[in-house]
């Protein structure tokens, strides 16, 4: 993958020199072990800042440009990702991880605003507008999912010093979002050739979202040539995916994998137990899988995009020169003399088909070793509390690695920072490892936890970072419909200079109440309270009397007494009347 970087360097030099050329695109194919193919699509267009401000868009997508102007956004990074990059067998990430996001959707932007409140308002505008543009739930990036990273993210564009003080970095993630075809369609619409011609014609939702790992990215940044005021706005769109070649080769009408017939099995006959009915599969590392472009992507490439006029070869493949590659007529092959790269120039009118036959070859394109291996998982059991463990390994035998580890956790995961421990190679030597820390605790229902730790790992060492947390129990209306699935926790972001690495997202199960019985709970609790209230106030307001006295004070007795009294009065009254008559 070193060739890859040299290619990038070459490309960036090229863009600087040919600033007038507005658009270029390139596809790089890299076979990975075992029988996988990394396809990196890169689309880049420029516009001058002046024409952007005058709403004169050419290759820059108008829909996105107007949103950026409306939300005063100076730099934007949007990511849609799925799957896990297997660094152990696939090596370093494409683009050094710079064009990649955590599982789900990730968005970060530099917004120009006078105050924090104004920045929050513009961020809200931005997320809502992008939500509509990309058919994603970006409008759910609310204050609990937004952080303002301090150490982790640096702007990649050139910003004027005057406006720098008013730029606010905001970062939001949606780890639960399922990236799908509905996000690819608006993505393709932003491209000048709209997926009709050029390398973007290979992009197909069926294949892209069937990949073992995929990442779509959009970056908008201002680029200024040194020493002049002449600035350009650059939009870079990339799609990287790791496709399983065997899986892609299955016929679409009959996709169920079937066991290889007995006679086609390639067995290692040197094993002592090898026999008619026992087979140890032969090591196929030297065996290169055969594939064609239309097998992998469903159809061949539909000619070059006529707008890409900078003369860069649009399709490259990173294989040893000994590997046979047959391209269809009309294309010109260029071999890179000092490496494993070969590129193809296309005929705009003709389709490109590329065939790599099955081949026995021991030479491999070398894999670049990543700077750091990172994995993160939950520890502990039960739905009350747990822990997080991040295993960070520096594979380099000579160089120490210095990086920032950033976590943005949901508020219902109550982090205990005093339990944060770093063990290096199994020993507690915490102070040398953790160099600097930024911590912003969560507030219930208002914001999430933000933790940034600067860590230094010496050569050839492993650091295990652990901390405890408590799982909050939520109000029953705050659970999603599938409450027992758990809640997704955004990946940790590791920044090593320009290289970034993301861990996988985590699934956090929370304790759940019984959703079926709000009425029952209200009634039962109220009953207990009423009973207790009744016990106490019944004793307080009523008087005690002896049981035998109680009859006198009975209501009936009182009624009888009153009746007797009235009778007596009436009698006396009648007697008085009689006496009067007698007189």
């Amino acid at each position: 993958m070193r060739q890859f970087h040299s290619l990038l360097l070459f490309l960036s030099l090229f863009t600087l020199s040919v600033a007038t050329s507005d658009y270029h695109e390139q596809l790089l194919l890299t076979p990975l072990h075992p029988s996988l193919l990394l396809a990196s699509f890169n689309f880049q267009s420029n516009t001058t800042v002046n024409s952007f401000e005058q709403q004169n868009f050419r290759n820059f997508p108008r829909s996105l440009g107007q949103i950026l102007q409306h939300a005063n956004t100076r730099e934007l990074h949007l990511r849609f990702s799925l799957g896990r990059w297997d660094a152990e067998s696939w090596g370093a990430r494409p683009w050094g991880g710079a064009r990649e996001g955590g599982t789900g959707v990730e968005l970060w932007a530099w917004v120009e605003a006078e105050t924090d409140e104004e920045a929050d308002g513009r961020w809200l505008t931005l997320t809502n507008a992008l939500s509509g543009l990309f058919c994603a739930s970006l409008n759910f990036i609310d204050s609990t999912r937004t952080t303002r990273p301090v150490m982790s993210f640096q702007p990649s564009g050139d910003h004027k010093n005057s406006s720098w003080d008013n730029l606010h970095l905001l970062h939001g993630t949606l780890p639960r979002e399922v990236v799908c075809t509905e996000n690819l369609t608006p993505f393709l619409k932003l491209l000048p050739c709209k997926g009709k011609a050029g390398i973007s014609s290979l992009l197909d939702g069926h294949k892209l979202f069937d990949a073992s790992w995929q990442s779509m990215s959009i970056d908008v940044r201002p680029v200024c040539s040194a020493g002049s005021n002449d600035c350009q706005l650059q939009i870079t769109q990339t799609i990287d995916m790791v496709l399983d070649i065997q899986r892609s080769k299955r016929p679409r009408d009959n996709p169920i994998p079937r066991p290889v017939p007995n006679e086609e099995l390639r067995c290692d006959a040197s094993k002592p137990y090898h026999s008619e009915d026992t087979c140890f599969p032969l090591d196929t590392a030297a065996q290169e899988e055969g594939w064609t472009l239309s097998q992998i992507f469903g159809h061949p490439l539909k000619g070059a995009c006529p707008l890409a006029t900078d003369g860069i070869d649009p399709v490259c493949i990173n294989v040893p020169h000994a590997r046979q590659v047959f391209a269809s007529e009309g294309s010109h092959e260029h071999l890179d003399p000092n490496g494993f790269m070969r590129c193809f120039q296309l005929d705009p009118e003709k389709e490109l088909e590329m065939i790599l036959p099955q081949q026995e070859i021991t030479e491999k394109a070398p894999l670049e070793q990543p700077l750091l291996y990172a994995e993160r998982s939950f520890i502990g059991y039960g739905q009350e509390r747990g822990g997080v463990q991040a295993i960070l390994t520096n594979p380099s035998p000579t160089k120490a690695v210095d990086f920032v580890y950033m976590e943005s956790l949901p508020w219902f995961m109550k982090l205990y920072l005093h339990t944060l421990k770093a063990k290096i190679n199994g020993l507690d030597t915490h102070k040398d490892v953790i160099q600097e820390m930024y911590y912003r605790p969560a507030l219930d229902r208002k914001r999430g936890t933000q933790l940034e730790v600067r860590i230094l790992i010496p050569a050839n060492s492993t650091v295990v970072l652990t901390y405890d947390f408590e799982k909050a129990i939520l109000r029953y209306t705050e659970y999603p419909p599938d409450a027992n699935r758990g809640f997704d926790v955004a990946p940790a972001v590791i920044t090593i200079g320009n290289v970034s690495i993301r861990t996988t997202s985590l699934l956090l199960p929370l304790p759940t109440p019984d959703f079926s019985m709000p009425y029952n709970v209200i009634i039962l609790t109220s009953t207990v309270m009423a009973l207790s209230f009744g016990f106490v106030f019944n004793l307080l307001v009523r008087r005690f009397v002896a049981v035998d006295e109680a009859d006198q004070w009975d209501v009936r007795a009182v009624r009888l007494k009153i009746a007797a009294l009235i009778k007596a009065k009436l009698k006396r009254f009648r007697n008085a009347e009689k006496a009067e008559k007698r007189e």
Partner: protein
Amino acid sequence: MSIDRRKATLFGAAAAVRILLFTSFPGLPELLTARVEISTPVTSFKRLQEGLFLYNHNVSPYDGGVYHQAPLLLPLFSLLPSSATYPAFTYLLYILVDLLSAIALINIAESGEAVSSKLFTSPRKGKRWSSFAIAAAFLFNPFTIATCIGRPTSVFTTCAILHAISKAVQGNSFTAMFALSFAAYLSMYPILLFPPLALLCYDRRKPLKNPELMYSFVIGNAVAVGGSLYSLLHMSSLITGSWEFLSSTYGVQLLLPDLTPNVGLWWYFFIEMFDSFRNFFLGVFWIHLSSYVAGLTIRLRRQPLFVLTLLLGIFAIFKPYPSISDTSLFLAMLPLYRHVFPLMRYTFLASSTILYATLLGPAFYYLWIYAGSGNANFFYAITLVWSLGLSLLTSDALFAVLRDELEVERPEMKGKEIRQI
């Protein structure tokens, strides 16, 4: 002298039991700290550690959702060596607080206020337990011991309340009011104890030549409580640098944003409550809790100490974040009324209900949270039983005391069956 030696033996034994539990089971403090029956969001020792860590690293602990305890605890615990490296100092502090509470309880018991107050003397006054026995019942109560090992900060509130009462029975009203303010400062709900406590001070004050009127006495004490509360709060704002701790400590008790399960009735009710009615029911629950104060204070004017005892029992059931520490305080005060125990009607039922809930509560919690074979209703049901058992006990004690009062008014009623009208 022999009494003092007995007391020393008692305190020594109580301290020894706790030290033994702390040292011979090193996992026990952590285990009990994590129990929801002992640690609540407003008293948990683990949250105190977190607050302390943030405070020592210049992050405001109140700008977060974890620490909801009083600010003065932070400098107090920062003075102690870290509990992670030298846990012994923390253990000793908590043992000391328990012993101080026991001393206050002994003072209350020795005053004899429970059997014979200024306005009322029980006909059964010979039948009381000695102060030694009452202190032993407090110190060896499994709830008290579990609380001490679990180290919630509610033990400081318990100690402050007991000292407020003990100073009140000694007629030392200003100190009593200060202790009450401190308790209220730590956990807010003890402020509701002010009316009976002021009456207790009034009854027990030293005879003066010109006795003050009750109203001016109560108003004077209210001013004392207000003044000391204000100075405590002001001190806290100086320590933390702002007033934001108010919403994070008292606001949490009033509005219940943290719904961590506990032995009380509030958490599940407000998990299941419809959003539009949440504020209404928060108001209802608080009014319900404070409604007992006026009723009991007026009806039992002659025995303010019993009003305090009963209110502590009611708070242990109905306050927002109750724990067994509150129950242990109520059970510490209840033996003062040993002389009315024969008049109680449901002692067996109430005590077996409480025992049943004590044993099944942890089991049901385990089934819900860890085993996954039960759901939240299991633990909720057991908290209902627990609350019912405790309310049976409090109301039965109230019945016994009222019956006792009746026999003073009408001595011929002794031993006869009675009815309420």
